[in-house]
């Protein structure tokens, strides 16, 4: 299957996602330039981390206007699986493909370190290989990862089971000190209503090889590889009326 990795001019984790898909998981992978209007037959699209257009305004605020985003939106509406990692998550929020917004980290400082994440939902193409309650150790690297949603939106997210990963301690317990950025409800990843679009602040592509200090990120890639291999029964292919 083919991974399509969108490259904005300031993307800097594009090569990492490509390496994971191609070299670690042995899948077909293609870079897709943000000015292009063709997803090159991708079965799954990754919006990688970085600073898409420098992000001096708001992270991801300009990327939503890149020509490729029209194709990404159409792909989402066809039920195609899309994963936004870090800056990619921020771009999905700015594009309205996921609900909510990012604030600066509570400490007002960039933070790069391993964190613990509890898997909340497994009925998405990117967490299907996990078990609910499983704790993953995956790095973060961001200055604006403090997820925010107004209370009514948050209630909807929770009742729709759209919160996919939460920051926890190593035992999977919620703990304010284990929330690295101040995200509301310790949210590290969410999906859209139709569950085919997932945005996550942690970087699974940085945790796919034991040489790099951990392999818990493999689960994200393994999930989507398995989901797509299973073919048409995949739940993500249901038609979607509204992305969110």
């Amino acid at each position, binding site marked *: 299957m083919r991974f399509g990795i969108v490259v904005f*001019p*300031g993307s*800097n*984790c594009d*090569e*990492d996602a490509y*390496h*994971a898909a191609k*070299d670690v998981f042995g899948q077909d992978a293609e870079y897709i330039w943000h000015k292009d209007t063709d997803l090159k037959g991708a079965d799954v699209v990754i919006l990688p*981390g*970085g*600073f898409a*257009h*420098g*992000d*001096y305004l708001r992270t991801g605020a300009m990327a939503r206007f890149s020509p490729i985003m029209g194709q990404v939106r159409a792909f989402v509406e066809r039920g195609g699986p899309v994963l936004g990692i870090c800056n990619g998550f921020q771009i999905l929020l700015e594009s309205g493909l996921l609900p909510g917004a990012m604030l600066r980290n*509570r*400490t007002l*400082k*960039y*933070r*790069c*370190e391993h964190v613990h994440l509890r898997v909340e939902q497994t009925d998405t193409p990117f967490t299907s290989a996990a078990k609910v309650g499983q704790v993953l150790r995956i*790095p973060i*690297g961001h*200055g604006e990862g403090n997820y925010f949603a107004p209370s009514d939106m948050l209630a909807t997210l929770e009742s729709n089971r759209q919160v996919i990963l939460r920051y926890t301690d190593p035992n999977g317990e919620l703990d304010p000190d284990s929330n690295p950025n*101040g995200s509301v409800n310790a949210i590290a990843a969410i999906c859209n209503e139709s569950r085919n679009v997932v945005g996550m602040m942690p*970087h699974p*592509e*940085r945790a*796919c*090889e034991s*040489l*790099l*200090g951990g392999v818990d990120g493999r689960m994200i890639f393994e999930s989507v590889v398995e989901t797509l291999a299973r073919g048409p029964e995949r739940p993500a292919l249901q038609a979607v009326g509204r992305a969110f």
Partner: protein
Amino acid sequence: MIDPQVLERHGLKPDEYERIKQFLGREPNLTELGIFSVMWSEHCSYKSSRVHLKTLPTTGKQVLQGPGENAGAVDIGDGLAAVFKIESHNPPSFIEPYQGAATGVGGIIRDIFTMGARPIALLNSLRFGSIDVPGTRRLLEGVVAGIAGYGNSIGIPTVGGEIAFEPSYAGNPLVNVFCLGIAKASDIIKGVASGVGNSVYYVGAKTGRDGIHGATMASAEFDEKSAEKRPAVQVGDPFMEKLLLEACLEVMQTDALVGIQDMGAAGLTCSTTEMGSRGGAGVEIDIAHVPQRESRMTPYEIMLSESQERMLLVVKRGREAEVERIFDKWDLHAVHIGEVTSDGMLRVKDKGTVVAEIPNRALTDEAPVYRRPMTEPEYLAEVRKLDLDVLTRDGLKAIPYSGVGDGLPPSRNASADHRSLGEGGQTVPGSQNTALLLLLGSATIGSKKWVYRQYDHMVRTNTINYPGFGAGVVRIKGTDRALALSVDGNGRYCYLDPYRGAMLAVAEAARNVACAGARPLGATNCLNFGNPERPAIMWQFAKTVEGIGAACRALDVPITGGNVSLYNETDGKAIYPTPVIGVVGLLEHADRVVSRRFHRSGDAIILLGEGHGELGGSEYLKVVHDLVRGGPPSIDLDAERALQDLLVTLATERLIHSAHDCSDGGLAVTLAECCFDTEGMGADVSIPGVEITRDPALNTAAALFGESASRVLVSVVPESATAVLERAAAANVPARMIGQTGGNLLRIAVAGQMAVDLSIHEAERVWNAAIERYFAKRVA
């Protein structure tokens, strides 16, 4: 028009002005004077340092590019080259810490990709005044945020570094930044302008009035007016640099490019003259074509601007469209501003009218070179005296320690109730525990997690040894190999003995790389000193360069490039002489990398090398006794080389689980650091005593905290201990099994007597809080 005041503002001396007139055969105009002033500034011309730098070893079979280009390069096998350099951005970082540090990172990254290399790792070496002073914390916060802001955005991981705090840097903090990139050895690109008629292109950010005379500023001392020099600090734009980086690397894939150089210090002036000079050609440009950010800029301002993120390219005639297309893709505008000529002149026109015309060689090869007078500084005789017996009798003080119940490390408060360390020749119970906690909680030794957590150290998914774990190690994708990188320097040692201090700095950087299991290949140096016009400073400089040369020769790590930063003084008070050495080493097998952390309970701990209780210039004397005295530790470079070779062998044969170099704070601090970040694994060791005074307590302290060089602690599975001891014996490296890992206590017996007995949890908490505690209150 050009009177003595104008000359002084340009940092030119009267005799230098006479030389300018000789070269031109006439009076220069103001634009020409400006061009001379930046090209002849210390920063660009190395006029005080050049005669000394020429003595450094710069060759070796592994060296692909020595000094003189934008960066050096060494062969790392598989047809690949490691391209690297270190550079300072000291004065700008004092004036405007965020932008000063950020643009320092931007500048060194440009030096690397200009060579055709993809930058893959950054390191930095920072020096500040005492952290107890609020102004220091403001500088630290700004500098760290600036490095993070630039490196994180452009997506190059910061994989290591070092920070020290000493009052001597209060008015002159040091920001030295190291970058390494990977290139195909056959595709290294030079900063050369050649081929008459080839096109000269300008690419990148527009030219503004920022940074005019930055190079001149870096060549003068500070005084109380320095804060007014803010306009001379540039503003960085990492996104623009990311575009330039990607576009330039793409242009380099074609063969349309002749040469390329970034516009760093002295901007358009330096890039045009240096490229012309290297190619033995002339360069003619018309500044009317230079993209300008501000209106009504004069030729003087355009030529001297240090606006960031600009590159100068020489493109083969007829291939221009190809190059322009690539820059277009990245939304960059490549502008044709001139061409290469045959007459060896830098000719600057403004809408066709010549506004400056200077022979290139007058600005580069023929720039002034000074053999400045040197004298041994007077302070040395005094500070080298360290009579421990006398000092003990006169009441050498240790600070009582009241525990860490409040979560804070001990503080050394001058008004605290002092107790004599060696009263009546008896060890004060708990005093070595106290001293160890004081050291672990000091800003220089304590954990730098608060700092490196702000740096993206994982992007590009190559980092296999994180910052804080020893040398930074990055694997090279597509090969089995990895590179280990370390930057080190000890200003206090060099203040006490610049020759030996410099040797120790080279040895430590190379040893750190070897501890990771890598064979040191080459080095780059950043030499930070005071005003070279003072003979005492020049003496420090000359001795330091001699020491670097001796150590690099003995350890076979040639210097492939670097940077000199002089005039680091404020109101006549100079910084400690501070050479910072960056060493690059090669691991043949990335998966055999070794870190500082103990790996497994029950492992044997072996000390390689021998301690002699050398306390001169130590962190112990400074932190516990507030004393900067004595000579730094001795070093035998042959023994050092044997130790480093042994470390590489042990790692290659997978015989060791961890390796950590004994440096600041001696064996006790090293052992504690081996236990940290292991989820509380302790160690129980027993080391021999030393006898350096009549005071038993001080002798114990010397065994624990003495900083004798060429020592490394390794941990090994017990079954391999014999093999390690045998390898060491064969290599002629002293080695001794001193204990084992395990438990949750740190216990060190000296000469059979328990001297340190601490909970790892407590020790680690103190170490972790050393810097973070100063900022903790501001976290929401």
